[in-house]
């Protein structure tokens, strides 16, 4: 599994790692029961603080996506609940794809669409509601 963390995106590295592990589980790049590298190994490979890996693993364990076995590492657990989440994400992606296609047809450039998405994601819900 290849992970790539970008220190300048304004998003904590542990969140980026969590998303990439989730994404790998969703796409099937990581299978149920598969073992992830140990904290130290992955920290040295990605050259990030071991706390970054530890935090991502423990949050994913809390979310029921990873099982941490003391001394033997982290294992992916794609349970039914996760599976239904995966289905939701796939449906959402299809809807997003349609939306983006429509926006393009209306003449928006990809860069403008990207900025609009980022802006919406960066504002908290209550502000969006007040508009």
């Amino acid at each position, binding site marked *: 599994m290849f992970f790539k963390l970008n*220190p300048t995106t*304004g998003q904590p590295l542990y969140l980026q790692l969590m998303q990439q592990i989730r994404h790998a589980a969703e796409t099937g790049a990581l299978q149920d029961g598969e073992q992830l590298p140990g904290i130290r190994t992955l920290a040295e490979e990605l*050259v*990030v603080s071991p706390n970054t890996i530890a935090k991502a693993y423990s949050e994913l364990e809390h979310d029921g996506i990873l099982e941490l076995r003391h001394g033997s590492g982290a294992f992916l657990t794609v349970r039914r609940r996760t599976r239904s989440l995966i289905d939701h994400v796939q449906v959402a992606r299809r809807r997003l794809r349609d939306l983006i296609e429509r926006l393009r047809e209306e003449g928006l450039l990809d860069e403008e669409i990207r900025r609009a998405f980022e*802006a919406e994601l960066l504002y*908290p819900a209550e502000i969006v509601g007040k508009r």
Partner: protein
Amino acid sequence: MTNTPVILTRDLTKSYASLKAVQGLNLSVEPNCITAFLGQNGAGKSTTIKMLLGMIRPSSGDGTVLGKRITDAGENREMRRKVAYVAENKPLYGYMSVEQTVRFASSFYPDWRTDVANRLLSQYKLPHRRKVKSLSKGMRTKLALLLAFARRPDLLILDEPSEGLDPVGIEHLLQTLVAQSAEGVSIFFSSHQIAEVERIADHVCILDNGRLLVNASLDRLRQSYRRIDLVFPFPPPEREFRIVGVEKIRINGNEMSVFASMNSEAVVERARNLKVVSVEVAPVGLRDIFLETVKEN
């Protein structure tokens, strides 16, 4: 694992005649973390580190390192056994060979890690028989770092460890820091290499003119610092945006750029109430956080 800070200072101050090198420093460094200490040349980083190690006496204030008071000679000696320090100028004996230097250093420390020393000797490609005085600056740095890493300290204090290293050397250094951290060593290091700090640090302290301006986790900085670019149908009223967290406002005609250390949502909300035409919110990298922070000061 305890959460007692490995370094804790209270109003630590050092003055030289009329120059205040360090002013009222309240520093708290968490254990089992990689903490980076940033500042311009002359900001007071080395002076702070030397006070922490008991090498120079504070003019006022006090502090503890690993729970030992820095102004108490006896406690200081105890602390120095558990702290490995690599100074900016990397003092080594020039007449010794690399091999002799490693053997000499190992004789002082009961917890010496021969495996770590040997691994780093080959990773850093240090010539065993070469005399220290004929080593390049980068090689000297690597040797000094090796001596610190092999000691298995509780706390590593490094003053500009990447100085004089080439990109491959810096990558090796970062990997070793990460490996040491994984073994439970707390790390406090000063650096000018912001891109490297941004990759491995858990916490960042920014010192300027002897004052601590930022002391926060890098995750928090990443999540809260934003640059907000706004366009209004009229010249925007600056005072509407002077709220907590807004560090800087630039206005150019109908455009306004806000640099915020927090509260970016409130800035956007105010802009919306003022019928803003365009809003762009962008994250701010550590380099810009550093530059804006020291510029403001």
